[in-house]
C-alpha cells in the first residue's frame, strides 16, 4: 500500500518470529555442511542422504503436526508418547502377520487415538483441568494399561503394511510423501477453513472468541482429537518401521517432549494463537539435522541425550529471552 496515511497507522516491519525458524534451519544446515566437509565425510552431503535424514524423523513430524494443533489452542499434549506405544502395539497385535487384518488394525488404532483425544479434550475443556496435568495423567493411564498387558514386542506386521515405512514412490520414501501430504492438509485446514480460523481465535483470546459466538470448548476438544489421531498414525508408522509394536517405543523416542520442542522451535508460541505448520516442519528438519550433526561428528549416544536436553531448553529460550514478562 502506498497510501501515506496507511504508514502512519501501522508500524509494519521485520517480524522476527516469522523468520526465526528459517534462520535456524539455515544455520543448522550450514553447521551440518561445515562439519561434514571439515571431517572429510562429504558422502553425507548427497541428496539421498539428506532424504534419509528426514526419513528418520517421520514419526516425530507426524506427532508434531498434531501437537501444533494442541498448542495453537493454548493447550498441550504430553500423552502422545504413550499413545504412540499403545497404538503401535494394538495395531501389531491385531494384524499379527495377517494382511487381511491391516484395515481393522488401522481403524482400531485411529479409534483409540480419537477416544484418547476426546477424553483429553473433555477433561481440559469441561473439567478445566490444567492441560499439562490432564495429559500427564492420561499418559500414566495409557502406559499403565499397556504395561499390564504386554511387556515386550507383541504381534507382527505383515510385509504389505511395512510398505508404509519402507515403500518408495518415484524414488522418494512413501512415508516422506505421506508426511508432506499431511502437512499440506494441516496447512489448508489452519489457513483456509473456518475451523482453522477458530483455532487461532481460541488460542489467541479465548474470551473474545467466546463473546464472538465461537464454541470454544468444542474447538479445544477437536484440536485434541486431531493431536491424538495423528499420534496414533505415528504409532502405526513406527509399528510398520519396527515390524512389530513394543510398549516402550513412544517413551524411548521422547515423542511428547520432542514434538513440543519441534513446535516451539518452529515459532508456534506455547501461549497459543500464533504459529503454523511450516514452522513445525522447519523445526522437525532442524531436529533431524542436529541428530545428523551428532552422528557425523561422532558424538556418543549418551552425550547426545545430554545435548538434546540442552538444545530443547536453548530453543525455547531463543524465543522467550527477549520478552519482558516474568515466567514461572
Amino acid at each position: 500500500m502506498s497510501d501515506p496515511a496507511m504508514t502512519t497507522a501501522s508500524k509494519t516491519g521485520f517480524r522476527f518470529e516469522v523468520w526465526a525458524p528459517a534462520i535456524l534451519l539455515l544455520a543448522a544446515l550450514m553447521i551440518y555442511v561445515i562439519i561434514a566437509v571439515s571431517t572429510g565425510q562429504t558422502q553425507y552431503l548427497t541428496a539421498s542422504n539428506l532424504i534419509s535424514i528426514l526419513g528418520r524423523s517421520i514419526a516425530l513430524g507426524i506427532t508434531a503436526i498434531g501437537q501444533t494443533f494442541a498448542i495453537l489452542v493454548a493447550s498441550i499434549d504430553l500423552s502422545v508418547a504413550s499413545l504412540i506405544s499403545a497404538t503401535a502395539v494394538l495395531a501389531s497385535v491385531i494384524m499379527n502377520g495377517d494382511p487381511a487384518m491391516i484395515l481393522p488394525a488401522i481403524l482400531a488404532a485411529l479409534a483409540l487415538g480419537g477416544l484418547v483425544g476426546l477424553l483429553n479434550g473433555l477433561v481440559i475443556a469441561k473439567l478445566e483441568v490444567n492441560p499439562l496435568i490432564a495429559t500427564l495423567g492420561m499418559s500414566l493411564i495409557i502406559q499403565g494399561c499397556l504395561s499390564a498387558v504386554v511387556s515386550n514386542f507383541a504381534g507382527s506386521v505383515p510385509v504389505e503394511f511395512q510398505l508404509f515405512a519402507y515403500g518408495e514412490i518415484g524414488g522418494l520414501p512413501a512415508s516422506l510423501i505421506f508426511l508432506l501430504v499431511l502437512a499440506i492438509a494441516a496447512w489448508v485446514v489452519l489457513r483456509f477453513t473456518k475451523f482453522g480460523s477458530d483455532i487461532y481465535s481460541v488460542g489467541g483470546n479465548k474470551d473474545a472468541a467466546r463473546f464472538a459466538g465461537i464454541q470454544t470448548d468444542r474447538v479445544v476438544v477437536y484440536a485434541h482429537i486431531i493431536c491424538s489421531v495423528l499420534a496414533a498414525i505415528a504409532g502405526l508408522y513406527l509399528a510398520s518401521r519396527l515390524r512389530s509394536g513394543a510398549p516402550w517405543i513412544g517413551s524411548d523416542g521422547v515423542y511428547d517432549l520432542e514434538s513440543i520442542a519441534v513446535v516451539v522451535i518452529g515459532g508456534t508460541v506455547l501461549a497459543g494463537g500464533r504459529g503454523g505448520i511450516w514452522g513445525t516442519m522447519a523445526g522437525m528438519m532442524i531436529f533431524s539435522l542436529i541428530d545428523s550433526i551428532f552422528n557425523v561428528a561422532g558424538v556418543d549416544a549418551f552425550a547426545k541425550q545430554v545435548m538434546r536436553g540442552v538444545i530443547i531448553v536453548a530453543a525455547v529460550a531463543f524465543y522467550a529471552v527477549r520478552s519482558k514478562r516474568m515466567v514461572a
Partner: protein
Amino acid sequence: MNKNGVTPVIEMRGISKSFPGVRALNDVSFAVEPGEVHALVGENGAGKSTLIKILSGVYQPDAGQILLNGATKSFTHPVQSLKGGISVIYQEFSLLPERTVAQNIFLGREPTRRGIIDYAAMRAETRRVLDLFGAGTRVDPNAIVADLDVATQQMVEIAKAISLNAKVVVMDEPTAALNEAECEVLFETVDRLRERGTAIIYITHRMREVTRLANRVTVLKDGEVAAQFDHVPKPGDIVRAMVGRDIADFYAPFATENEIGAKVLSVRNGQNDRVSNINFDLSAGEILGFAGIQGAGRVALAMALFGEHPFTSGKVRLNGKTVAFTNPRDAIQAGIGLLPGDRKGEGLVLMQSVRDNGMLTARAFDTLLSSHKANQYADLASMDSLLDAMEVKASSYDQDIGNLSGGNQQKAIVARWLALKPKVLIFIEPTRGIDVNAKAGIYHLMRDLARGGAAVMMISSDLPEVIGAADRILVMRAGTIVDEFTHGATEHDIMLAATGETEVAA
C-alpha cells in the same frame, strides 16, 4: 412505547445489582430509541460499566428487566445480546492482536464456501464497512492488528459493530486514548451511525462530547439515576447531578504553607522511550497531582521513577542525592513507594490474607530466614493496628484479601507502605473501582500521609479528584509535562492543557 410513540430499541427497567460488599446498581431505568445518541455519564464507580455488562449479558441483574424492541429478554451470555443486535465496544479491546483486521471483523462468522473461508469476500466487505465511515484509507484489511495504533484499533472495533448490523452500539469512553483529530473522526462516525438509524449508548465523563453528540442524557451517581434529560442540558446541570455532594467534606483540606516542607525529589531532563524532557520538584508534605489523557505518559513517568522502566537519561535527586534505580526494589530501599493503578493485576496477592498483603514489603526487606511475624518495619500486632486505624473491614485479617471490597483492598496496600514510612509515595488511580463513599477515606489517608511528612504523587484520570485532592497539578501530554496549576484550577483549563487544544467547545 414512550410519549413520542416510538418503541425504544432497548429499554432497561428497574435494574439492580449487588456484588459482595458493594451495591453497584439500584433501580436503574433507561431507554434508547433508533437513531439517537443516549449519553450515559457519571463518575468512576457510578455504575456505568456494570450497567453495560448487564445489557450485554456478562452479568445477570438481581432485579429488573431488559426489553429489546418491546419484548422482554434475558441475556445470560454475550453471544445472545450480540445476536439481539447489541454490540459493545469495551475499553479493553476484544481484538485478537495476531490476526488481521478482516479476520477480527469477521471473528466467529467468517464467510465460507464449501467449508473454505472466502477471504476475498471478507476483505471486500471489510473495505466496504471501513469506507462507510471514512476509515478505508487509514486501515488495510490485511494489516495485523498488533501493528496498528490504538485509535486505528478502535476503528476496527467500530467497523466490527457496523458489519454486525448492530441496532444498538455501546461505546465505553471511546475517546480515552484518542487525540483531537482522531476524536473528530470518531464523532463523525457516530453521526453516520445515527443517520443510519442505529441507537448509540455513549459512555463518557467529558461534557464536551455530551454537548457535541448526545440527544438524551442519563446521569448515574452511586449506582442510581441522578438525573435524566430529554434534551441536551447545560454542562453545569450535568456536573451538579454527577457530583451532587458537598465537595468540602469529600476531599481533605489542602496543605497550608507551613505544612509544605523541604524539597524531597527533583527530576531534571528525565527521558526514556515513553517520556521525555521531564522536569519537576516534589516537596515533603505536598500532594502533587498528575493529570492528562490516557497514554500521556503519567504512568510511564511513575514507573521510571520507581525503577520498573527506568529513565535512560536525565538526573533524579532524592533528598539531595543523585539516584538511578534500575528496579523497584532499589527504589523502595531508597524510600519510594508505589500503589499500582491495576490493583488486582499489579498490587494484590489475591490468594493471601489481608495481613500478608500488608506485610508483603516489610518482609521483602527483612532477612529471608527470619520469622514472618516480625521485622524491623512491622510485626503482626503493629500491622493489625495500622489496619484497624484505617478501618479496614474484614471478618478477620486472616481472610483472603480477594474477598474484600476495592476500598478495603486499597487500604491494605496503603498499610503495606505505611509500615515502611517512605519519603515519596506514588498513587496511581488511587480510587479506581472504589465505592464512591470509600473514596473520601482514601483522600484523607493521602492527606494524613502528607501531613506526616511524606511527599505524595497522585496520578489520576478522574479530573475532579485531582482538582479536589492535589495541592499542585502537573499536566502531561505526549510523554512530557506541558503545564502546571495550583489548586483552584478548573476542569476546563486542565483539559485544555491535557488535549493541547486552543479552544474548547464546552
